[in-house]
């Protein structure tokens, strides 16, 4: 054995020396890296500090530098350039190029930098980017969301005429957030849009962009596509369109769980009108509708009020509780009583009352 190892034995001290040197160097690098970071607290990592007094014209060259190894410096230059009060000639092109860059990091950094400007130029470039690039749209939209309507409104309306449905979709999403009113003709045109994504986005936007959202929303409640119905139901609730409660109530029987869930939450939002529909549906033949109706009564606080009233001797309230129990919502009634127990901390009295009500 020993005869076979001398070369290795001879090399080992050298190997150890090299390893010890490498270990010491990397340990020193850890310490040096931290000390340097503490000293340059505000500097971005990997970016050569740009002279703060550098005029915007001098930022154009690094902002246009497409070499991969200069990427972080380019981002820093773009940020500085976009924050300049007066943009030098060629800056618009440099920022537009960055927004069209195949590299996500460059593109998103340019978007954030432009959003910080929040002016017409920035809005124009960002809206164009939203239309032309499929990837990263969520982030671009989040930046555009921060713009004032007077700056971005007109540009967004232009997106609705685009032949690409995904562009119309994003236009509507942002118009809904900006609360820029759409004309009845435009709404009519969008209700008939061939893309369900666009129709769903319209439903979501309507409470904010229509002077009278009830009519269009009620029509969208009957859409063939389930997620359009989901958005229409949610929007009806959000807009408190109480005359639509009956139509929303019908959706508690929908074949899609998501639609039933949205309808249930909308009925809660609709207050008394929603509660009336839920009470009506407690005896429905559809077990899902019965469950959802009972949950509406719970989430709206109606059941809690009924329990309190029943304990106080209200027979109508007791009868409703019994109806809900008959509808299969026994656990839900139990939960309501348990909540009341927690509230008044008089378990014995409540237990007694509960028996009375159940009888």
């Amino acid at each position, binding site marked *: *054995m*020993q005869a*076979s*190892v001398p070369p*290795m*034995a001879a090399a*080992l*001290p050298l*190997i*150890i020396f090299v*390893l010890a040197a*490498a*270990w010491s160097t*990397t*340990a020193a*690098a*850890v*310490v040096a*890296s*931290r*000390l340097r*970071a*503490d000293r340059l607290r505000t500097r*971005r*990592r*990997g*970016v050569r500090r740009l002279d703060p007094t550098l005029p915007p014209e001098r930022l154009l060259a690094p902002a246009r530098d497409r070499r991969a190894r200069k990427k*972080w410096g380019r*981002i820093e230059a773009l940020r500085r350039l976009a924050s300049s009060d007066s943009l030098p000639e060629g800056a618009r092109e440099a920022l537009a190029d960055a927004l069209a860059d195949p590299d*996500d*990091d460059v593109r*998103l*950094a340019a978007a*954030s*930098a432009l959003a910080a400007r929040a002016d017409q130029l920035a809005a124009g470039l960002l809206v164009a980017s939203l239309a032309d690039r499929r*990837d*990263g749209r*969520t*982030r671009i*939209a*989040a930046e555009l*969301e*921060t713009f004032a309507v007077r700056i971005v409104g007109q540009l967004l309306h232009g997106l609705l005429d685009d032949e690409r449905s995904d562009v119309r979709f994003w236009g509507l*999403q942002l118009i809904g*957030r900006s609360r820029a009113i759409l004309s009845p003709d435009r709404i009519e045109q969008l209700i008939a849009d061939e893309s369900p994504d666009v129709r769903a986005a319209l439903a979501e936007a309507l409470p904010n962009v229509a002077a009278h959202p009830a009519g269009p929303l009620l029509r969208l409640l009957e859409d063939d596509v389930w997620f359009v119905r989901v958005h229409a139901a949610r929007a009806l609730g959000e807009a408190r369109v109480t005359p639509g409660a009956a139509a929303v109530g019908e959706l508690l029987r929908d074949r899609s*769980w998501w639609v039933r869930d949205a309808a249930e939450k909308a009925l809660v939002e609709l207050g008394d009108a929603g509660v009336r529909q839920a009470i009506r549906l407690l005896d429905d033949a559809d077990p*899902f509708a019965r*469950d959802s109706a*009972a*949950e509406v009564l*719970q989430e709206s606080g109606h059941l809690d009020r009924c329990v309190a009233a029943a304990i106080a001797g209200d027979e109508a309230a007791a009868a409703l509780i019994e109806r809900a129990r008959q509808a299969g*919502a026994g*656990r*839900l009634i*139990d*939960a*309501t009583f*348990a*909540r009341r127990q*927690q509230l008044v901390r008089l378990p014995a009295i409540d237990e007694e009352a509960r028996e009375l009500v159940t009888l």
Partner: protein
Amino acid sequence: MSVAAELRWAVYVCFGYLLLVYGSYFALAAVSFVEGVFRARQSDADDMRSAVQSRFTIPVSVLFAVYNEALPIVESVRSVLANDYPEFEVIVVNDGSTDGTLDVLTEAFQLQPREIFYRRQFDAQPIRGIYRSAADPRLIVVDKANGGKADALNCALNFARYRYVLGIDADTVLARNALMAGMRLVLRDPATVIGVTSILAIAEQPELRMREPRGQRRIDRRPLLAFQQLDYARSFLTARLGWSRFNFMLCSVGAFAIWRRDVLEEVGGFSTTFTCEDIELTFRIHERYRRLGKPYRILSLAETVGATEGPTSVRSLIRQRERWQRVIMETVYAHRAMLGRPRYGTVGMVGVPFYVLSEIAAPFVELLSFLVLTVAAATGLIDFRLFLLTVAAIALLNGLLTNIALLVDDYTNRLYRLRDLVRLCLLGPLDLVLYRPIIVAARARGVVGYLRGDQGWNKFERNVRAPA
């Protein structure tokens, strides 16, 4: 063949294995270093201020599976609820705890009984009660019969309403920006990024550690916890970052794992037939997406998204690591069809073989190396000086890997005090003699447990909390 000749061959096997393993470790560490530096710079360049406020930011359901976690659960849930993220919900499933976990939650978050009709997409044990917090309506607590962590997570999935879910452990305390840090790359490309995990710090009491400001955070004084911190750092920052770059990131840890919900539906949720659920799920998703040729990314990040509790006694550590070894063996065996198959790309050709080399073979070869080298040195078959030099070389290799991990960690996070970083650097080479033997013993027990078909959780006892 004589005993000496057999020993000689054994020594060659051990050296060969060491060369192969450390060669692959350093290759991965180099890739991880590049990836870590890139991600840190990317994070700097990425201005998320609009996304933190935006309704376009994809909402997340945060899922807890909790069994007898009365001690850490409240701080953990509070840390999630305090996150700066536009829209999320928190679903805590109490998996039949017997230590008053539900009472603690009820008291802390003013839970009120509710009945919520949910989609039963995943099988789970019966539910005993559903509660919503009166203090924060984003929090739902589901009390169910005990069925194990995977069963509880499946139950939580039934209640999850959002497109992405984040599974975290009851002893994990998140940083305020953890959700945004985890979702940052998802928001860029939600069609492709289906899973994200990230590194966590180790502490005796994570909630106390997380209160310390960035740059001033301490490493626990107990060496056992410091060694675990190094173990995590090496695992995430010199291995998983590299796996992530080549898209064979094979273990999204249960302490912080983001998944796209439809992917979990597609693969049938968490499996209850394995000792742990996290690594197996990651393997299963890779297997399906590679087989079907779907584009996807599962990423591991270098940002410390929180802290999690580490065992403070050797006994507890052995129990934890023994379980990890069992589940690795169960998982690799269950998905052995991917091994060396070009159809599975980097997962089959690099990821699974690496697991076999560094995780399955490791307990046997580490034990064999220890025995063979000790016997060879004791009997004079190899020079005792050579033996010591070999040990020193391995210790320095570990120290070097540790330093690379610390470089990436500090470059990315700037969390710890300088003096604690120095302490960690100094502990790196000592890992071989002070910490590694414990892990080797735990792994050996894990192998025995696997062969015996043991599937117990063997949870370590939570550390007692000092008064706040």
